[in-house]
């Protein structure tokens, strides 16, 4: 895969305008009505959905990408990356990791995949830290309360 052919993860954060997305949607639905959807239209729509900030759209985008993955063996390599990107944006780091690692197995030299990898790792770690912090805070509050209860009990 040439480096210019797959977008960096930052591109996924930039969303399309509403009009553009609307046009893509109508195009997709028009082809759906004709019961022959070309892969390109499906991808255009899916990519537009993934880029949008609405979670429901992201989900739908990932679903469409999964559909492309299933039905077009030729496009599967690219879809792996896009699926990983989509899941990463949604926060499903496990799936994102597994898709990405699958891709890296086949193409270790892929720059975008590597960068996505590091991104996912950082995000996972960040969540972990936050979680630990919360757990720690909750534990601290819990012990304080417990201590208070015990003291009250012993005082009586």
């Amino acid at each position: 895969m040439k480096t210019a052919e797959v977008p960096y993860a930052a591109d996924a954060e930039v969303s399309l305008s509403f009009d553009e997305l609307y046009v893509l949607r109508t195009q997709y639905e028009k082809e759906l009505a004709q019961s022959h959807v070309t892969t390109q239209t499906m991808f255009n729509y899916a990519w537009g959905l993934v880029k949008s900030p609405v979670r429901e759209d992201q989900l739908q985008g990932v679903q469409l990408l999964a559909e492309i993955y299933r039905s077009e063996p030729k496009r599967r390599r690219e879809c792996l990356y896009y699926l990983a990107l989509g899941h990463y944006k949604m926060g499903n780091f496990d799936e994102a990791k597994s898709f990405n690692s699958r891709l890296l197995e086949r193409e270790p030299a892929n720059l975008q995949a590597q960068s996505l990898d590091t991104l996912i790792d950082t995000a996972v770690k960040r969540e972990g830290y936050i979680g630990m912090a919360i757990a720690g805070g909750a534990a601290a509050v819990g012990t304080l309360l417990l201590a208070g209860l015990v003291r009250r009990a012993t005082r009586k």
Partner: protein
Amino acid sequence: MAQSSKAITPDSIRTEPASSSSQYDSALTSRLDAVSRNFFAHFNHRKRDSRQILADLAPVIMTPKMMAHAQTVSARPRAVGTSSTRPTLDFATIGRTPLRLGLGARRTTSRELEVVETASELLAVTLPDASSEERGMPSLLRGFEATVPSADTARARRRATRNVNAPRLGLKRLSLGARGLITEAPTDEAESEDDVVVVVARERGRRGRKKRGRESLSANKVFGREELERQTREIVRDKENLHVRRSLLHNDIVEITNKIEALDVIRTRLEQDLLKLQEDELELDDELLMVQERLELETSQNNQSGSIHPSLMASSRRRKGPAFLPSEHDELPPGVAFMSLECGSTPISSLDFSEPYGTLVTSAQDDAHPRVWDLLTGEEIGRLRGHVGTVKALQVEAHLCATGATDGAVRLWDLRQWDLSDVLEEAEEDGEGTGTDGGVVVERPRTEINGVRTSRGSEEDALGPCVRVLEGHSKAVTALYFENDTLVTGASDKTLRQWDLATGQCVMTMDILWAISHPSTVPAGHLPGFPLAGATAAAGAFALGLYEDFIGAVQSWEYALVSGSGDGAVRMWDMRTGQAHRTLLGHTGPVTCLQFDEIHVVSGSLDKSVRIWDLRTGGIFETVKYDHGVKALQFDSRKIVAAAGENGIKIYNRTSMQHSTLSINGHTRPVEKLRYMDRYLLSGGRDAIVKIWAL
């Protein structure tokens, strides 16, 4: 609240355990396993839970069909995921659980669950290897950039740059006026153009001084270097986009073509199935006819308490429905000769049998005594003595057999009567033959052996099988057909004779030469000036090499008679008047075999073709071509079985128009005669062997 199911954990995620020693690690993790499994059991997501959740969330949507679909989606085996089912107990997972428990407060929708579930399933799908075909295809993102609507904006922008700030002309109003439409009052619309390049306007200060000629619209326009370079780049990019779109469309077209081809293959297969159904329907029609006939028969039998009246039963030649076969016949492999009978050493000249696994009579060239066989055992019962020349035509109906030979005589035989003396004589003559003629075994009749042998001199006096002798023809009898009490014979003296079997008298003689020279109707499809003399001459000078039979075949029904003769004509006679009322011309060689039913006449001739004619109009339905002359044929609504001068028997399927050949364990020399009833076929060839096939 649903957590994701066990996903693969590549080694990059494991941070802590990787650093510690392996042994300590394994002990630790095993204990941790137990603890963690219990601890996290609550959060482990099982497949059935998701379906439960889905069903609860939207019971209306989750019809049984959807549930089944969800089940199949989740039940597909996950090759990679099953290997690591235990929860990964490491820093990251522990850390994230609080988030997932409390702070990740998002409503789980069915879509999310589906996405999550299918993710693991997708991973199980195999990737194709990196093949060269992918190099030619533009990547998805490239295609996106090429086809997204904003790709066209560059072009629009460039067009906008070429817009000139001209004074308002009111062009639209003009055009509407030209077309005759009513226009509104002209309003001053503000023209807004985003990307209008700054036009360096030349001061038109000194107006009025001189009326210059009007300059072209582009005269005042200067773009500037960067703008022009930008436009070049954009145009180049647009051209690339065009290429990308072209290759996308091309790929799509190729795919669609492949799909169409696959569908075409499926369609031809379905059409073949349709043809097969048609064939089955024809077979069922025949069976219905026969069953109805039998019904009438048996009801009439109940009414009169007599035996089956022979006239009610159609002759075996005309009977179409299935025959009575022993149950073992169904187990025979189709298309294979399962029995062979050796009949002497000379080519078989004719054969016929009464019913499957019944009695068979065969005659050979240069052998005046046809043999009688029992088809159940495959052994020769005896011989019919009486003729002095090759028996060229014979027909067997139940226990009656009629034979016509080159001595011009027609004999009737009763196959039930076997005189002992005949058997004894035969035993004497063929005593030495048991060694040489392989399959000829003389079977002693059921009656006890009489020690006294009475010498039978002339067969005419004998009480043997021969019941009647019909003399009248002057030359060899080459074709005959009898039904009930009417027998029709054709001979090389170019006449057809009709006989009454009850009295043994010749009722009518029909002369073919006379019919040729006095055609009652104009032959169908021929010019009025058809040279009759030529036909007569052909008939007169008739001697086509080895084939000498002027009348190749006859068949009759009530008073209608059809004959096929050596001049290639198939004639239809009315036996009440003795006139040929129709002649079917088309064959270019002598007609050797024919058969007709209510709708068609089928005739085969030495001109390597079989023609199917319409009985009522005389027009040709079909012509089937073969590689050699056709010597024998039989047809029904679904097939034509022909002996076409090859070792194999040719079968032509009339519904699918396909040819096939019976050759397994077949003849070693060309097939001469054949006859079949339902699924039981007999064929005799020049190798002097009669083979029995299961169809």
